[in-house]
């Protein structure tokens, strides 16, 4: 093969590489057709994942507070167990040990600040808390086959735009398989069979809304609908890194569920 033939062959090969030239994919929405979700956002309300079904007054760690997902008997029983531990201040949130991502859908249930980065080929959720990141590919690819996923905290997500609404599917979640992924501190969990359809759009200039439909044949008796909203903050704010392990004086013992408080000498005082 001479050099000219080789060059032509290489060029043809490059054109076949998936994802390189997303702009040529008719399904991909170009920049000038995408909505403006720039700025700094913060979640509306506290960190109860499903406020619409909350009973009891208070936050996620307040005894008596719970939500009512359409759990089957086995997962309702599991949730009741978590609630009992929570009420006794012994339900461990592994996030307190600064080691693993919060995953999806909990990444849409965090305090502090968010950025939502809209590009033709991918949508990024950047949460300052954690810090946590999620990617939703919008370059026309398909979700991987089930046998090509292995269960991760955030799973895999593929989406597309329907006008000003981003619609994405998430699968490949590890759920409660390893007891290290929750939705909030009441002890809500999903299983490793969960899949979630999310529709996210601006409902007014300063409010983004994400409506999730959660299916989970192992844990739920019917689809679970949850809506989260985010308010835009004043312009010009700086976001920072969140070095969770920088000075974590509240590690949790995942075996007993106890949250320690470390004194100035680094030893627990409780």
């Amino acid at each position, binding site marked *: 093969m001479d050099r000219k033939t080789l060059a032509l062959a290489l060029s043809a090969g490059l054109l076949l590489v998936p994802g390189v030239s997303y702009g040529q994919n008719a399904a991909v929405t170009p920049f000038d057709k995408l909505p403006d979700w720039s700025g*700094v956002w*913060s*979640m509306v*309300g*506290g*960190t109860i994942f499903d406020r619409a079904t909350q009973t009891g007054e*208070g*936050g*996620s*760690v*307040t005894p008596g507070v719970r939500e009512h997902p359409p759990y089957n008997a086995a997962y309702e029983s599991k949730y009741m167990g978590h609630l009992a531990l*929570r009420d006794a*201040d012994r*339900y461990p*949130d592994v*996030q*307190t040990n*600064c080691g693993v991502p919060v995953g999806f859908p909990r990444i849409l249930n*965090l*305090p*502090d*600040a968010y950025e939502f980065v809209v590009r033709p080929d991918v949508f990024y959720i950047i949460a*300052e*808390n954690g810090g946590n990141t999620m990617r939703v590919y919008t370059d026309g690819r398909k979700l991987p086959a089930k046998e090509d996923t292995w269960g991760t905290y955030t799973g895999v997500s593929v989406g597309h735009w329907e006008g000003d609404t981003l619609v994405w599917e998430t699968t490949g979640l590890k759920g409660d398989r390893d007891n290290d992924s929750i939705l909030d*501190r009441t002890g809500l969990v999903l299983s490793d069979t969960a899949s979630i359809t999310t529709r996210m759009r601006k409902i007014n200039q300063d409010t983004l809304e994400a409506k999730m439909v959660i299916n989970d044949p192992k844990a739920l008796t019917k689809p679970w609908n949850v809506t989260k909203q985010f308010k835009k*903050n*004043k312009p010009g*704010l*700086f*976001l*920072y*890194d*969140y*070095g*969770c392990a*920088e*000075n*974590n*004086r*509240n590690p*949790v013992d995942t075996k007993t569920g106890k*949250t*320690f*408080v470390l*004194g*100035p000498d680094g030893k627990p*005082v*409780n």
Partner: protein
Amino acid sequence: MRLVHNVVFAAVVLAAGSLAIQPLLAHHSGAGFSKDTKEISGTVKEFQFTNPHSWIQVNVEDESGKIVEWSVEWGSPNQLGRDGYRPSTFAPGTKVTIKLHPMANGALVGGFIAAKMPDGKTIGKWDGD
């Protein structure tokens, strides 16, 4: 008592006057803070302006005349920074009075409510919790 922890941070934010981003969730859940309010006066030893939470270390003379070190937990420096606070807010050597929610077990640790500085200025919700 775990709710108190969130209330503490909510109070901080309200007092700070920047309501944009509320640190609604403490990094950890319950840590044994009571609903009681306690006031301590002493000298700032160190202000740990660090994630996931800030800590104000204060040397305080106890009832027996002995100097003991209190640890006062505050919010994330990310949010505190956006609210205008800096590592110099509690400079070492500063005389300060702090209102806090003490731990129920009597440990010298508490959740920050408010502080009064030497010039009389206050930080947080000094007049009511």
